[in-house]
């Protein structure tokens, strides 16, 4: 473990935790502009978090300790996820602890905990939200895994740092299989982050909400942690997408100067990605929950076809 490695690891965690709400704010701002509304400030998510942290937490009478631990667990999972995805540098001491498969497992762990917490109170919304979240999860998880597998086949590795290094080093060629994986990844990322067309982060309409139904019982610091974790998840997914499909500019091992360059590149890529997300959300309408399995099934099949096409062409 070198000091540059340690530094880049720390920097990555700090940047992820600090900038994740900014990314949410940026997406919200663009969404408002694209929908011809006046936009909230870019710093609105931070104010929101500050306000929630200051408030008392209100717990339902019958909440078990699981309910109170879940926000911390989810937050911890998301921080670890951001720590192992190479965004600035590939020299990360924590990265060997989890490869692509473990990353998917990490997201699943967070999802299971938040769903269990939602069922803990025993209101209709919570358990309905949990059911829908798990429904999305069990379809999205294998699709995400297959997308990561396509990348693994190119680099012959599931280690995220090796994947990014390999993808960044090759010349720009479009693998047809990988393009399909890209489409699948976008679809999965939208679903997993509770975005239109699967869920609407701005809704509080009982019949349609998924993520909001899950966390309906949370308040105060618990809610703040969950919201923060949600923006960290968006950040993590964006970084996975960038790492897989636009890996250029990430500093290779032992190059501290390159890391200084990597930060603005990352910010530029995230800004562009956030704009695209807002655009996608504005152009689409939310679909009925019954159509979601079809949508995610398509993503799953696309990712598998991507994998197969890749293998076919490799032969």
């Amino acid at each position, binding site marked *: 473990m070198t000091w540059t490695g340690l530094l880049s690891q720390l920097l990555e965690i700090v940047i992820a935790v600090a900038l994740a709400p900014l990314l949410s704010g940026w997406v919200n701002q663009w969404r408002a502009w694209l929908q011809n509304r006046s936009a909230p400030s870019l710093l609105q998510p931070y104010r929101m978090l500050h306000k929630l942290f200051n408030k008392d937490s209100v717990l339902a009478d019958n909440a*078990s300790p699981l309910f109170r631990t879940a926000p911390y667990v989810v937050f911890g999972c998301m921080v670890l996820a951001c720590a192992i995805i190479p965004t600035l540098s590939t020299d990360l001491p924590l990265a060997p602890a989890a490869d692509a498969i473990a990353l998917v497992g990490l997201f*699943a762990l967070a999802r299971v905990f938040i769903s269990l917490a939602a*069922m803990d*109170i025993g209101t209709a919304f919570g*358990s309905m939200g949990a*059911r829908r979240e*798990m429904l999305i999860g*069990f379809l999205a998880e*294998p699709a995400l895994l297959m997308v990561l597998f396509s990348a693994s086949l190119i680099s012959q590795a*599931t280690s995220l740092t090796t994947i990014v290094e390999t993808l960044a080093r090759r010349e720009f060629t479009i693998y047809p299989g990988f393009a399909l994986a890209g489409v699948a990844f976008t679809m999965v990322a939208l679903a997993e982050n509770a975005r239109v067309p699967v869920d609407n982060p701005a809704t509080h309409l009982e019949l349609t909400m998924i993520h909001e139904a899950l966390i309906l019982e949370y308040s105060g610091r618990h809610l703040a942690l969950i919201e923060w974790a949600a923006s960290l998840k968006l950040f993590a997914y964006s970084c996975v997408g960038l790492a897989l499909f636009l890996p250029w500019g990430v500093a290779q091992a032992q190059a501290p100067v390159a890391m200084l360059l990597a930060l603005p590149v990352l910010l530029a890529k995230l800004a562009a990605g956030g704009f695209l997300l807002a655009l996608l959300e504005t152009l689409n309408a939310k679909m009925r929950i019954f159509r979601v399995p079809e949508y995610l099934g398509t993503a799953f099949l696309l990712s598998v076809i991507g994998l197969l096409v890749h293998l076919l062409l490799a032969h």
Partner: protein
Amino acid sequence: MGTAPSLGHWLHLDWVLVVMAGWLVLSVAGVLALRRLELVAHLLFPIGGLLGLALFGVALDAMLDTPEVAVLPLGLPGLPFHLRLDSLSAYFLMVIGGASAGISAFAAGYFRKGEGTPPGLMCLEYHVFLASMVGVILADDAYAFMVMWETMALSSFFLVTANHRVPEVRSAGYLYITMARIGAIAILLCFGVLQANTGDYTFANMRAQELGPFWASIGFLLALFGFGAKAGVLPLHVWLPEAHPAAPSPVSALMSGVMLNTAIYGLLRVSYDLLHLRLWWWGGLLLAVGLATALFGVVFASIQTDMKRLLAYSSIENMGLLFVGMGLTLIFSSFDMLPMAALSLTATLYHVASHACFKSLLFLSTGCVLHATSERNLGKLGGLIRGMPWVGWLTLFGVLASAGLPPLGGFVSEWLLLQSFLFAPGLPLPLLTMLIPVVAALIALVSALAGYTMVKFFGVIFLGQPREDKLAHAHDAGLWERVGMVWLAIGCVLLGLLPTLFIQIIDPVTQRLVGSGLGTRVAASGWLLAPNSVAQASYGPIIFLLGILGSLALAFGVVRLLYHGRMRRSLPWACGFPWGTARMQDTAEGFGQPIRQIFEPFFVMQRELPTPFDARPRYRVVVEDHFWRWVYVPIMDLSAYLARLASLMQQGRISVYLMYSFLTLVVTLLVVMR
């Protein structure tokens, strides 16, 4: 690991036989103390647990040693029992010992007065069952194997029918014993093929035979059928969801967590030890059967409303995954890709151990719930984590491990399995290379669905509001029960956190079976689990856990430091609707609804929906699987038809039967005289 001298002059095999004999003594003692519950429960079962622990230790110590053989002068004249302890059997003995230690401790607190079979009889059947499983693993000739195998089936049949006054339990028991018989016949035939007309049924002779591809395939298919019937793979699974839930919970735990593994052991023994050939299509067949089983099992598990049936279907799923692992190993070893074969075999064996831990734990937890509430129906449970915190939190470990989530035991085997899929593209057959990613995708789907099922299982039983009034008085598990569950939960956690250590234990088995192992490879990377190199793929569960816990603690500390820890209690938010009741929560049926919709072709469904004008509206949905109609109903019809034909002869009059005898005599005489 110590060496042999630490155990004195006795061989490991002798110590295993001592444990077996100890269990048999306990079973006799159980009969002598037939109705003295205190004695049976608080003395005999704990001793049985300690013997299990001893078996665990001896088997762990025996992993590295060269095979030990013994001949017991039991059985028929001229047919003594041959026994053999090698690393493969030592590994399965270790799993049996470890899991049964926890289950026996639990059983010490579980059996109550007035529940079906008297406690002493339970003790007899239980310990004979344990001893016969050890016997199956040790057997080194077909005769001993079949005797032990049948003893195992019979003792477990009596355990399943412990509550024989309930008609469903009886029919489940008969279904079980029927399937066990059919499986046993196939195994017997398999041994018949393997001995290759030499008339010598010892395994040593079978190892020496070089069968051609045709007879080897016949032997393999028979083994697949026979052991598949025991493991509950498609389409021989029908008995499993009936029999496992019918038994008392410690027995369900023993059957699902431990007995099913003997089928895996048998198949490994036949295909890697007794047979020399390894054809790739055997692996392909195992892969296909396993995959269908896994998908079928998990889809059915997710729609169950009976908690023990749910777990039984989940066992079917896990057996499917094990078959997939074995199939992959066969494919790799048929192409001489030994390091890859070692990887997938390690995944399989790892899953055997973690499945034994978490499935036993979950079945024991249903036993606690059953005792506290006398309900198995998920629709009448809920909110039990408040009244039963021990059971609830310990079950959470089993649930997370069963869902294949890091950093627990189930994830490691899933990780290893997916790794071996990922590096499969080196296979020389393009068809397989194309199919294997599809299989990997389905495996990913299965494990994600397992997560769904486990959230349903835990959420509906332990979380939410109690759906019945009586649940408020549910009592927590007793001391013995806690000890058993804690032991198994520790197993789940350690298997998750120390994969490198455990893989080094498995190493001698893979070395013996496929001639390659992961041991040295993982030992090189220290705490990280990296089958090839850290740059290629690695997983470090301890760092992983510390990463989550560290950021969790940091978040907690920072929030407390910068802000506050104030908290209020209040009513849950109900949108201003004050008449909400516990019955308005999502039910188990509701949780299964999306699955029923998505996987509709899997099921035969009968729905009864109320109309708006019903005075007493009733909703009912019955879900069955197709295999009853596709396979079993035709067979049943056929046998009924044959029986009717035979019944034409049965006139019930003595003169008719005398005439039959007369005719038979005449025909015999004609044949003989000619």
